[in-house]
């Protein structure tokens, strides 16, 4: 192995070195440079995993292989945890995130209700693609999971060389804007229970699971209502056996029933909207439920 070049302080013949020689080590922590150095086999395994994971994001999966490959060099998988803030309004965007199985809420201010929800169908930080390097929203991780992340600098450099990515992101940006309009209108005009149902369905779609974790406070914040109001809305959904909600864990029991309860905004903000070609009309609020 190429360990001779590494500035290590591993004792000769010590247990660490023996384990390295036996192929049982993934990484060396180099205290001299404060770096974690991945050994080749581990590096390969992680790269392959990243490649696979990135295909689970619809925007990345839609790219031709050459472009996908070019982007991968700048993408790293990260675990995003519930409650983590990725972006703040008015603050420069540091990363573009392509969710794999996490969900990220976009809110206008610290207290404001949600204006967008991003999952594997989309990306966070795409203002960069539109030439804006400061975030206009707060991006809050709503469901823990993995995302592929790219630095803003790398994105700037790569974006212009990737025509397919440009197309995907412009289309997605438009869909995201439509979603924001729809949600803002929804927050104004539709009943909390219908909005709650809509919101649970949207979250479930994005985390690709019928079960996810949500605190009441978070729900209240997203819907722009008080906690008591969340309870009043969640109660009937539980009694009608559409969902169960215990210790912050939500489970969608009857999806059809929940869909029937949700306002029409749910279908208008369908998960695959960003992937739809420009055929369909833009969503409106003409027919409220």
């Amino acid at each position, binding site marked *: 192995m190429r360990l001779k070049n590494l500035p290590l302080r591993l004792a000769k013949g010590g247990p660490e070195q023996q384990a390295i020689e036996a192929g*049982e080590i993934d990484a060396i*922590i180099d205290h001299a440079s404060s770096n974690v150095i*991945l050994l080749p086999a581990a590096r390969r395994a992680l790269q392959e995993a990243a490649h696979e994971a990135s295909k689970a994001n619809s925007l990345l999966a839609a790219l031709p292989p050459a472009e996908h490959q070019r982007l991968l060099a700048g993408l790293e998988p990260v675990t995003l945890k519930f409650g983590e803030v990725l972006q703040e309004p008015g603050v420069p965007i540091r990363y573009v995130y392509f969710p794999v199985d996490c969900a990220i809420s976009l809110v206008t201010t610290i207290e404001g209700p949600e204006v967008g929800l991003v999952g594997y169908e989309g990306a966070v930080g795409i203002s960069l693609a539109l030439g804006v390097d400061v975030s206009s929203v707060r991006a809050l991780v709503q469901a823990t999971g993995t995302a592929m992340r790219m630095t803003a600098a790398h994105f700037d450099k790569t974006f212009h060389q990737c025509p397919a990515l440009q197309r995907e992101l412009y289309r997605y940006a438009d869909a995201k804007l439509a979603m924001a309009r729809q949600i803002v209108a929804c927050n104004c005009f539709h009943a909390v229970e219908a909005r709650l149902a809509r919101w649970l369905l949207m979250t479930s779609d994005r985390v690709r699971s019928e079960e996810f974790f949500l605190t009441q406070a978070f729900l209240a914040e997203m819907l722009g209502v008080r906690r008591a109001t969340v309870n009043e809305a969640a109660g009937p959904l539980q009694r009608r056996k559409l969902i169960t909600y215990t210790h912050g864990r939500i489970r969608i029991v009857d999806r059809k029933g929940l869909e029937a309860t949700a306002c029409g905004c749910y279908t208008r903000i369908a998960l695959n909207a960003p992937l739809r070609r420009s055929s369909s009309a833009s969503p409106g609020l003409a027919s409220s439920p």
Partner: protein
Amino acid sequence: MSRRQHKPRARGAPVTTVVVLRLYIVGGAPNSVQAIANLEAICREYLKDGHKLEVVDVLEHPRRALADGVLVTPSLAKLSPLPAANVVGNLSDKAKVLLALGLKGKVQ
């Protein structure tokens, strides 16, 4: 000699020494995946509920690995009960792990 710290207990009360372990890994890397599986199997078999295991991903928390003096991953540290002990590698050598955990006498 390893049974020195037995305290007298009421008859029938279980002897519960909680073993505190920390495993440093690189999430998703092959040896780390194996180490987690191997350690969990050992804990299930020998420690049941009498242990606490914390898994630290050194890519996510490099500073912790540096501060704790970790040299390679996977690396298992037994923090308590004393004496502290360390095992590096994918923990496939069960006897070595049990020795480090102070459970050598229990190996069949």
